[in-house]
């Protein structure tokens, strides 16, 4: 459901900065269904790729071979991402706060002596800064949705409505947060993430209980449309054959 919801955020003709995992699956799904002209861009430098299988890594040969063009790493960041040319960016997160700030650096302890060291920033910081809109995809629990996160790796709305501008960030920030329970969107005034959609058969109280801050609920709360047969069929086909 997270994958399908993510795919649905993509419009035909958009350009999309894609990471590995759910974002890649979602983007390939969108391109195969409602958005055939979606332009997929990976941080490995592949522009307008048309993968026919799920890439193993962000720099899979499949992405290079099916791309319109491949550029260097400095070019993909400096020429393509930084100036705000890319419409949508997908981000994962280990921790998210109510302003959509993201931690992918460490959990517990201190930066110098972490309990769990995570991979770090990668391209996420700049995707969060420069894509016109970003979509965060993250399972929702009180371990991941926190009042205060251990480290700000990538900026969402900082400490509120004026932060992004003061940091010189040109993108709009996280416009959609997709979880296994529903969808959160920033309040237009406060920028605080608010539950606006809930997946079928999920209870609102369960979402509140899975959130580390006092979650606000939209008064127009909707239920997301379940995956269609076409979407499910395609996802099953895309799933790579398991090796024994």
């Amino acid at each position: 459901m997270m994958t399908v919801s993510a795919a649905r955020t993509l419009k035909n003709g958009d350009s999309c900065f894609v990471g590995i995992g759910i974002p890649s699956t979602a983007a390939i799904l969108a391109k195969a269904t409602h958005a055939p002209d979606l332009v997929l861009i990976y941080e490995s430098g592949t522009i307008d790729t048309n993968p026919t299988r799920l890439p193993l890594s962000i720099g899979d040969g499949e992405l290079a071979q099916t791309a319109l063009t491949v550029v260097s790493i400095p070019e993909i960041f400096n020429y393509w991402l930084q100036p705000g040319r890319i419409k949508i960016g997908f981000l994962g997160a280990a921790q998210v706060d109510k302003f959509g700030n993201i931690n992918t650096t460490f959990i517990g302890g201190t930066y110098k002596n972490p309990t769990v060291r995570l991979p770090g920033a990668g391209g996420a910081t700049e995707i969060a800064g420069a894509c016109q809109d970003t979509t965060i995809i993250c399972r929702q629990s009180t371990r991941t949705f926190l009042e205060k996160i251990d480290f700000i790796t990538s900026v969402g709305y900082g400490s509120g409505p004026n932060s992004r501008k003061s940091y010189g960030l040109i993108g709009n920030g996280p416009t959609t947060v997709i979880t296994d329970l529903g969808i959160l969107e920033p309040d237009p005034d406060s920028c605080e993430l608010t539950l606006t959609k809930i997946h079928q058969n999920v209870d609102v109280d369960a979402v509140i209980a899975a959130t580390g801050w006092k979650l606000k609920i939209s008064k127009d709360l909707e239920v997301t449309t379940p995956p269609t047969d076409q979407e499910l069929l395609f996802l099953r086909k895309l799933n790579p054959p398991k090796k024994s």
Partner: protein
Amino acid sequence: MSKFKSLEEAIKELVHDGDTIAMEGFTHLIPFAAANEIIRQGLSDLTLVRMTPDLIYDRLIGAGCASKLVFSWGGNPGVGSLNRFRDAVQNGWPKPLEIEEHTHAGLSNRYLAGATGLPFAVIRGYQGTDLISVTNNVAEITCPFTGERLTAVAALNPDVTIIHAQQADREGNICLWGITGIQKEAALAAKKVIVTVEEVVDAFAPRSNSTVIPSFVVSAIAIAPHGASPSYALDYYIRDNDAYIAWNAISKERESFEAWLVSEGLRK
């Protein structure tokens, strides 16, 4: 005065204890053979620079070759964590590992500044993150025209950059293609450049998105077929994904990792 040498000779002559070395290749063309040779020669106290430390630096860190790591994303791509990297950062095993951590844009622009002969490069980034407070070589800079505040990253000029390419020609020019990542900038930023190649050819075929590095900026070339395995070399071999998955188990415990070093002939 040929630049063609054995990999053993190239590492012995050009890489020394305490050096800052960059081994680049963004998921593609990762110079694993050269890294294994560095472990085999028992080099130590290296400052390792690489955007994505990946399995290649997990090995070097676990083998005790490194005292510092400069990086921007430290995971096992598509699989999970780097266990030897985590053990070094979290527990200081086999020795403490100092880290300098960037974003991809930040580190790639540190190389870019180095390659362009400038002391710094400018990007729009880092502001509002906690990275600024924990990472050196990042500073605020003000635009002299608009007054806008941006971020400067310091130039990085490794003592040695090591890359793997598909081909060299007989004059020692280098050609790589597919995802070419940060290799050109990392090479041009370095004082010395070692290139391992799949093969030597008479001439390079026309190919989209190929990168050619002229011989006159290359210090040594070693022929190392399959030198990027278990990563891949486009049009030569694909990624050995099983090896990436298997690495998780090998690297999980110190004992299993050390047994692997011995079994691969990297340590006696």
